[in-house]
């Protein structure tokens, strides 16, 4: 049986959009897939050692279920983002959903390969020392070398 492969392009750096790449990658790895995630633009935030800046905002996110309806004017108030993030993290914990840190660690344990887009690392002036290891740095061509041979390729 040849090994199946999956590639994911992670472009978002909010708490809600951080979960799908790590959940799908760890699951695929558990099923025996060889997996690579290409982190670009805001997705690079997911490679930082400290994930406390990965937050969720109810603002411009009308599909987010809220305990009480909240007017946009209220969503704009200072502190709302931290509050929404705290509430979401509590909800995730209550439902037995792993933390991002835990899922990311499991991906690495199962040999999921993380690739950071060199261009956007430079563009946003990220300090590589802030990123976890192991992370490889490369561009789109390098990623396509793997992605072109995958069974599943997702853009998140």
């Amino acid at each position, binding site marked *: 049986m040849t090994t199946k492969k999956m590639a994911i392009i992670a472009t978002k750096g909010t708490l809600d959009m951080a979960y799908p790449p790590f959940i799908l990658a760890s*699951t695929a790895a558990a099923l025996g897939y060889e997996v690579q995630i290409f982190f670009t633009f805001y997705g690079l935030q997911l490679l930082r050692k400290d994930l406390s800046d990965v937050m969720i905002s109810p603002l411009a996110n009308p599909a987010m279920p809220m305990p009480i309806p909240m007017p946009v004017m209220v969503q704009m108030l200072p502190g709302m983002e931290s509050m929404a993030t705290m509430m979401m993290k509590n909800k995730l914990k209550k439902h037995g959903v792993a933390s991002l840190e835990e899922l990311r660690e499991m991906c690495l344990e199962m040999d999921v390969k993380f690739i950071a887009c060199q261009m956007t690392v430079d563009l946003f002036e990220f300090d590589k020392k802030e990123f976890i290891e192991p992370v490889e740095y490369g561009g789109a061509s390098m990623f396509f070398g793997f992605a072109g041979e995958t069974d599943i390729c997702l853009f998140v």
Partner: protein
Amino acid sequence: MNFNKEFDASGMSCPLPIVKTKKALVDMESGQVLKIIATDCGAVKDMQAFANQTGNTLLSNTEEGGKYIFFMQKK
């Protein structure tokens, strides 16, 4: 049913039961049986799909008082 190792995934949500089942199987030998306990109802279909795709055998799949019990034989 006899089993060689037990993994309790009670309270865990997707994808933890599957990912940690995979990890629990790593240091087991071919033919040995892993008992898995889960409370996430999504695990029922996921565990069957995991077995189908990895070649391990799901020997049984039962529910007891809100808990799902699986016996997985390593290939």
